[in-house]
């Protein structure tokens, strides 16, 4: 969605040479995430409401799992000290030849709040989850 680019979201799309369930196993649990997302993923589970700390290159971020769509999508919010929180969405889809397309979007929360306010015409009337789904 072009809104992302305009609002200053970071977006990455890549096709991974592995089936979706193999990629999902590296997304849907803290041990899997630790192999690539960050050096240390201190979370009990990847389920909505779970929160903890992610450490990468010595930088700690407070992280909260916002949404999980089994086998397909994880949305989380994270925030490094002194920085604006951002929302991260990892989405997996089947690609050709048994491969997996992964889309990553990171969006500063403040940009999402403004866009949401414009979309619904009032501050805070829309629930957070479906807004992220719309992104």
């Amino acid at each position, binding site marked *: 969605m072009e809104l992302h680019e*305009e*609002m*200053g979201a*970071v977006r*990455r799309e*890549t096709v*991974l*040479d*592995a089936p979706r369930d*193999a*990629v999902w196993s*590296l997304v849907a649990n803290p041990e899997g995430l630790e*192999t*690539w*997302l*960050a050096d240390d993923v201190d979370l009990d589970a990847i389920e909505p409401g779970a929160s903890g700390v992610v450490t*990468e290159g010595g930088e700690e971020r407070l992280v909260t799992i916002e949404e999980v769509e089994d086998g397909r999508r994880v949305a989380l919010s994270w925030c*490094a000290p*002194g*920085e*604006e929180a*951002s929302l991260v969405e990892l989405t997996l889809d089947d690609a050709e030849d048994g491969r997996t397309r*992964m889309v*990553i979007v*990171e969006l*500063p*929360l*403040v*940009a999402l*709040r*403004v*866009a949401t306010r*414009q979309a619904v015409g009032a501050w805070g009337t829309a629930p957070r989850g479906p807004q992220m789904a719309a992104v």
Partner: protein
Amino acid sequence: MDRDPGPVFAALADPTRREVVRLLAARPGLTASALAGELPVSRQAIAKHLAQLRDAGLATAEHAGRETRYHLTPEPLAGAMAWMVAAGAQWDTRLERLKRQL
């Protein structure tokens, strides 16, 4: 990532304000009236948008006689761009690590 890009993103999340930024980038020193003449919104609306851009540090006002002329301040935009570049580079690194796991 030593600068908080939040206010800049908030200011740029509105399409009219992005148009104002685009016009000011092309023609520095435009007045609110001149901007209203270029965009399908009222001068009052433009004034509000300009105030928000000023609050975000993206624009400055220069009083010249009875006119107020507006200019862009590039530094906050550069800060927001720097955040995007830094965050994007981190995702590139993470994706490389992920590919090595598969």
